[in-house]
């Protein structure tokens, strides 16, 4: 028996959305790639914590990733945004660069070594933000063409009016960008937040089919949502182990 067949059936080729990175085209991965999408204060990080603990308890190696976390420029984006100087196209490209750094230096190596990679948001949030800012979806689609296609994508769908209360519970103020203030939707910050979140939600609905995004009712309690997510992930992993 050769080594390849012992190493297992879980090795598969990575699939990319568009123009793959030429030097990664034939990449082989072993792990599973799961995304939790959802607006600010929708409970993504809480859910990722819970899911990670459970998956680790079940014996899986888990790696967490997320937007704006690369060592390359993650901090730089925050600084630039704080100074309100960058244009919308510039911000998009900055995020894309930051995302690429994480994809190549963290996510792909993690998947190659057999981790379950749980990502707190992915390119869908970036594309939704760009779409509501008038950037054409074909441009965004091409830009993120180097992104690896995940195994499962969940979207925590929370009613924007409910979301406001969760944000206030968390922070006691509304974040400038999460309220879409740069879009000048309304002079009233609260109204601007709700309008902006509704626009983003609409974009997610639009992307749902193309990207196979599973919408999860996020208006429920933390444990209800967690049971829902955990069951879907377990089912997926069980199914995979039979293939």
């Amino acid at each position, binding site marked *: 028996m050769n080594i390849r067949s012992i190493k297992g059936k879980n090795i598969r080729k990575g699939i990319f959305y568009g123009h793959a990175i030429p030097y990664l085209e034939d990449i082989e991965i072993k792990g599973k790639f799961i995304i939790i999408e959802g607006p600010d204060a929708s409970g993504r990080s809480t859910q990722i914590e819970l899911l990670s603990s459970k998956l680790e308890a079940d014996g899986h190696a888990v790696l967490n990733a997320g937007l704006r976390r690369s060592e*390359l420029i993650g901090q730089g984006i925050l600084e630039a945004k704080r100074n309100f100087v960058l244009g919308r196209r510039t911000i998009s*490209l900055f995020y894309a660069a930051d995302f690429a750094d994480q994809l190549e230096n963290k996510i792909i190596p993690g998947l190659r070594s057999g981790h379950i990679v749980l990502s707190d948001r992915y390119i869908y949030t970036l594309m939704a933000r760009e779409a509501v800012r008038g950037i054409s979806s074909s*441009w965004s689609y091409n830009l993120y063409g*180097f992104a690896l296609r995940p195994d499962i994508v969940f979207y925590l769908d929370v009613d924007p009016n409910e979301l406001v209360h969760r944000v206030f519970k968390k922070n006691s103020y509304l974040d400038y960008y999460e309220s879409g203030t740069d*879009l000048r939707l309304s002079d009233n910050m609260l109204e601007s937040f709700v309008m902006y979140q509704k626009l983003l939600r609409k974009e997610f609905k639009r992307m749902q089919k193309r990207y196979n995004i599973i919408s999860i009712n996020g208006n429920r309690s933390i444990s209800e949502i967690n049971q829902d997510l955990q069951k879907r992930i377990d089912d997926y992993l069980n199914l995979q182990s039979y293939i």
Partner: protein
Amino acid sequence: MAYSKKNTGKNIPIKGKLIVVEGIDGSGKSTQLRLLEKWLIAQNMPVFFTEWNSSETVKQITKKGKKSGRLTPITFSLLHATDFADRYERNILPLLHAGYIVLADRYVYTAYARDFVRGCNPNWVKKIYEFAMKPEIVFYFKVPIDIAVDRILSGRPKLKYYEAGMDLNLSNDPYESYRIFQSRIIAQYESLSLSENFTIVDGTMEIEESQRFLRSAVLKLLPLSITKNIRGSTRP
């Protein structure tokens, strides 16, 4: 959606002119563009000069990445696109709207050439820069590789890692790597010069001679009402 329709500025007419120089390091393009700038300023034309990779905001952030040598072809490409977008959104486009003559020392073609050499998908790169308007004229400074490389290397400068194309593993010797890297860039420029309709400038000509050529070409792009007064002043 929200302000896309009314506020993207797509309907504002471009009154200015965008003039670009391209070519490898040592081809003489920057010297020529600076002389062109001096001339236009002397004619009281509103001029703005912009250089590749010079956005202050972006540079602060990318310096770290370049220093650490952790850039891949994709991140390298995207950081340069970010730099370009910042200069485009904040300087180039508004100034063109305002009627300026914008002089760009390198434009999207530099990104094309370098990114293609680094192995990025050409369609991917081109689509990213789709938002950039086509220049009025692109001067491509064509010069034999040995002359350009000698001009740059004669002072034995310390070549930076990415500048020498060391990330491509062409050679362990930075100077040798630089030479191979530049010759590959030239090959990309050559094929772009046809598809993108470059105006070719012989980079081995005397400085004055090249400048006369540039000035007369630029003069043809300016409105007649302005050029009446400038004619005859193209001699450097």
